[in-house]
């Protein structure tokens, strides 16, 4: 059981470039989430999904898009990266039975936008 994995671990982008962050979970969880962590800000929710084929906006969705084509995968896209998107990105998943389950986090992707 790998749990939640994230690819890549680290990436440097130039302003205006695009990229996709991949999150995969092998726990058959319904719910998946993307957060970003910035110094002094805690973790903030970008987008989330409550099941395959569904997505919804979180607290800070601007500049990001997501897709959940397969239950086990949740992709986060940056179409035109900006320096303000320099952050550490965490993916999480939860079983989704009652809405209060423990979320399991991946190890994070560190993104630097120059």
């Amino acid at each position, binding site marked *: 059981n790998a749990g939640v994995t994230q690819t890549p671990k680290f990436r440097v982008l130039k302003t205006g470039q695009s990229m996709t962050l991949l999150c995969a979970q092998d726990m058959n969880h319904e719910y998946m989430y993307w957060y970003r962590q910035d110094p002094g800000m805690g*973790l903030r*929710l970008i987008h989330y999904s409550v099941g395959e084929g569904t997505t*919804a906006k979180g607290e800070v969705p601007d500049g990001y898009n997501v897709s959940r084509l397969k239950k086990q995968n949740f992709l986060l896209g940056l179409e035109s990266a900006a320096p303000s998107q320099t952050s550490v990105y965490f993916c999480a998943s*939860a079983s989704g039975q009652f*809405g*209060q389950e423990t979320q399991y986090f991946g190890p994070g992707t560190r993104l630097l936008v120059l």
Partner: protein
Amino acid sequence: DQQVKQNSPSLSVQEGRISILNCDYTNSMFDYFLWYKKYPAEGPTFLISISSIKDKNEDGRFTVFLNKSAKHLSLHIVPSQPGDSAVYFCAAVGSGNTGKLIFGQGTTLQVKP
């Protein structure tokens, strides 16, 4: 508008003593709270949770207290160990049965040997 606040960015305690981490929230509709622990270069891991129908939940060395009238919760670690040195995040479950978490800013705990 920060709905969950951890006003102490850092805390340093001696090994064997008690660590008390605090968290305040503004939304009285929150009814479930969690504490996560995070080591450098790793994702957060779940530590302990509490429902609003309780005022205390204990798991080994970790106890979470909830004071609903004050909109305040705290995490007690007794006794503290050097391996407890990490960033601790308080989180509240948002509305809508989607499991969305609203995190505090985090408190860095250092336990000195």
